[in-house]
Structure formats: C-alpha cells, structure tokens
C-alpha cells in the first residue's frame, strides 16, 4: 500500500517537474505562471490590463491574417463560379464577335460597292446621254479574248456597239447582247479598234488592242513625231462612240505609241453602258 502510494507520488512529481530533453520549462512552473496570469486578469490589475490590450491587439491582427485564407474560401467559391460563368460568356461573346466581324466585312464590302456605285452615278452626270449601270458577272482572263460579261442585256435596252465606261473612262464596247447579259470587248483585246484623238492639233488615230494591258496607236500621221503623256479621247468618227470620252495617256515604247488606260481592265466590278442610238449596219 505504501509502495503504491510512493509510486503514485513519484509519477506525479516526475510529470510535474520533469522538463524533458528539449523542454525549457517544467509543467508545474507553467501551471503556476498560468494561475498567476489568470488571477491577475480576473482581479483586473492595471498592469495586466495594459499588457492584455497589447497582447489582444497583436493576436487579433495575427488572427485576422491567419484566418484570411479561410475567409476567402466563400469568396473564392464565388470567384470560381464567376470565372466559369465568364468563360462561358466569353465563349458566347467570341462567337457573337465573330458574327459581328463577318457583318463588318459585309458592311465594308457594301460600303465599297456603294462608293463604286456613287462614283459611277457621279460620272453619269458628267457623261452626257442615257446610261445604265451593270455589274461585271464574269471577267475571266483569257489569252485570246479580253472581254467581260455584264448583267445587262437587251431587256435593259443594250445594243451592240454601245460604249462601256468605268467612271468617266472608256473601257470597251458591247459586242454580244443577250436578253439578260452582254459581252463587252475591252480596249486591249486583239480585235478592238477605236477611233481616237489626242493632242492640240488634234491628231486622229486608231487605238488597237494587242492582247496586252496597253493598246497601241495605229494610223498616225506620217510626219508626226509622237511623244508621251498626252491624253487620248474618243473621236466619235465611227458614229458609234460619243466623242470626248477619256481613254488614257500616251506612252512611248521604241517605235510604237502605247496608251496607258485610265481604267485598269483587270479591276472592273461595275461598269456603265451608255445607251446611245447605234446603227447596227454601221457596227
């Protein structure tokens, strides 16, 4: 009985006083300190009040920082939901933006088309006589034939031989008329022959296509010394074309006088057909 009590006492003493290998304070010491702090705090000593204020402030701040990640969890959840929603929304908006961009391209295309049409309409004012606007349906380049197909035909009053202009500038004449379409022979076609005039005198000549971009001037006066950069106009001598339609500028090329056309025959989208009375026999 006595031995058992001794063992109990030894164990208690050991538990209270033994510091252990890495412990600086014994249990009993810390218990006493705790009890003192508790009593001081309970009986509201001034010294402990000030100390407690200091400790509280420090620990509250530390607590605030320590719990910040957990406080952020609901926010994080909210953020994740928002992000998922934003991703979905972004997907939809991207699709919508793509759609708008396509529409923007369409608008740009229509704007350009409108500008072209306006130019043509403006040019119509300058060119005397009745005219009709036509869209180029086909402009497939061929080494043998330089022509375009337009969406106007006999239904619109188009006849063979009618001059076709791009803006103010001559580009060719009608050589084939269908009910709803027509073929325009371009000035640079090998078969194209147009009477022109240029210079102050003025000089008459024939503009002949050679299958290249720049047609040449033929049948020039014998003693004429050609020079470049002169504006070439239609003379109207054939009775088909109106006189005074600008065609291009002369360019010297060794012995030949070439004409650089004002309107690029490869870049046509809309053209104007001048509805003038043409004599089929003359044509």
């Amino acid at each position: 009985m006595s031995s058992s009590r001794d063992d109990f006492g030894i164990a208690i003493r050991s538990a209270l006083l033994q510091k252990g290998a890495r412990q600086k304070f014994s249990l009993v010491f810390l218990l006493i300190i705790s009890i003192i702090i508790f009593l001081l705090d309970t009986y509201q000593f001034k010294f402990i009040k000030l100390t407690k204020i200091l400790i509280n402030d420090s620990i509250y701040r530390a607590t605030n920082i320590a719990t910040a990640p957990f406080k952020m969890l609901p926010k994080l959840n909210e953020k994740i939901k928002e992000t998922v929603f934003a991703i979905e929304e972004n997907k939809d908006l991207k699709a919508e933006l793509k759609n708008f961009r396509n529409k923007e391209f369409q608008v740009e295309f229509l704007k350009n088309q409108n500008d072209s049409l306006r130019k043509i309409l403006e040019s119509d004012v300058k060119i005397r006589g009745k005219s009709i606007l036509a869209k180029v349906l086909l402009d497939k380049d061929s080494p043998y034939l330089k022509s375009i197909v337009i969406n106007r035909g006999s239904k619109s009053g188009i006849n063979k031989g009618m001059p076709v202009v791009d803006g103010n500038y001559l580009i060719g004449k009608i050589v084939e008329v269908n009910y709803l379409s027509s073929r325009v022979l371009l000035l640079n076609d090998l078969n194209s022959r147009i009477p022109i005039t240029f210079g102050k005198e003025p000089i008459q000549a024939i503009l002949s296509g050679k299958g290249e971009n720049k047609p040449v001037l033929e049948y020039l006066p014998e003693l004429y010394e050609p020079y470049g950069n002169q504006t070439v106009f239609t003379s109207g001598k054939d009775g088909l074309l109106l006189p005074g339609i600008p065609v291009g500028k002369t360019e010297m090329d060794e012995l030949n006088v070439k004409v650089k056309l004002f309107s690029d025959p490869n870049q046509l989208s809309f053209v104007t057909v001048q509805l003038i009375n043409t004599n089929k026999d003359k044509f």
Partner: protein
Amino acid sequence: MAILYKNLRASIVNSLPLIILYYLSISEIDTHFSNMFAILSFNLQIIIIYYWMLKNSSVLGNGHIFFAGVINDVVMGLPLGISSISYLTVSFVASYIRQVTVNMSLFTDWFTFLLAIFFSNLVYLVLILNFSDLQISYVDMSYNAFFTFLFYPFIWTIFNFYQKIMLLRVDD
C-alpha cells in the same frame, strides 16, 4: 545544401502538430459544427496535446502549450490563462500516464484520455464558475467532451500514421 534541405524538411515535418495547435488557437476556425449538426463539437487542441505529450513530448513542449492556451483565451475572450491551465492539465495527465504505463495501445490511450478530458473540463469549469461572471452551457460542454472522447481513435489513427512518417524522417 542537401543537408540543409533535409534538416528543413525534417523540421517542418516535426513541427506540424505544433503548427496545427497554434493555428487552431490563433484562428477563428473551430471544431464546432453547429451549422451542420446542432450538438456536434469537439476540442481538437486537447486531442493534439494529449496524443503528442503521451507519444512524443518533444514535439509540442509545455511552453508552446502554455502560449497556445494564452492565445486561445485572447481569441475566445476567456479570462487570460484559463485555457493554459486547462491544456497544461491535459499535458500533466498525459505525462503521468506516460510515467506509469509501459505498453500503450489505442484502448489504453483512449481510456486514459477520458481522465484527461475530465480533469481538463473540471479545472475549466471550476475556474469559470468561481472566478468569472461567464455563463456556460453544461449541456454543450458535455457534448463537446463526449465528441472529443469519441473522435479520439480516429485522430489517434491519423497521428499514429504521421508519427511513423516522422520516425522515417529521423532514420533517413
């Protein structure tokens, strides 16, 4: 460099229970799940202190337990020192059990943990009732004690596994 890294890693592994103890004391995070289950609450700090003072007292140390208690009092708004006394009581019981027990198993630990909870809550209750104006719910306190006791084997298993990892690190 490798030795430094190894020591740092071992230090972190060994300090984790202490970090958890301090974090539970300093943070507002508690083990009260009243929003999930009205009566469910348990005191993880007591489990940590008891287990590690019983198994490996060098992991925590009485000084840290004391400070953790002071911090807990400040955060919880309890009279300063009350949690320290309560925690040190648990530590004392664990130290005593370690002194008198040779073979320790889950069941002996679990049974003796009941003593630790009893004395810890007794001290807490006596101090609150006699030295402060605070009102406490005996029912809540009883549930807390009951669930702390109930969850001990579960936490014991986790800590036992963790202790094996710590021992492996030491032997590295």
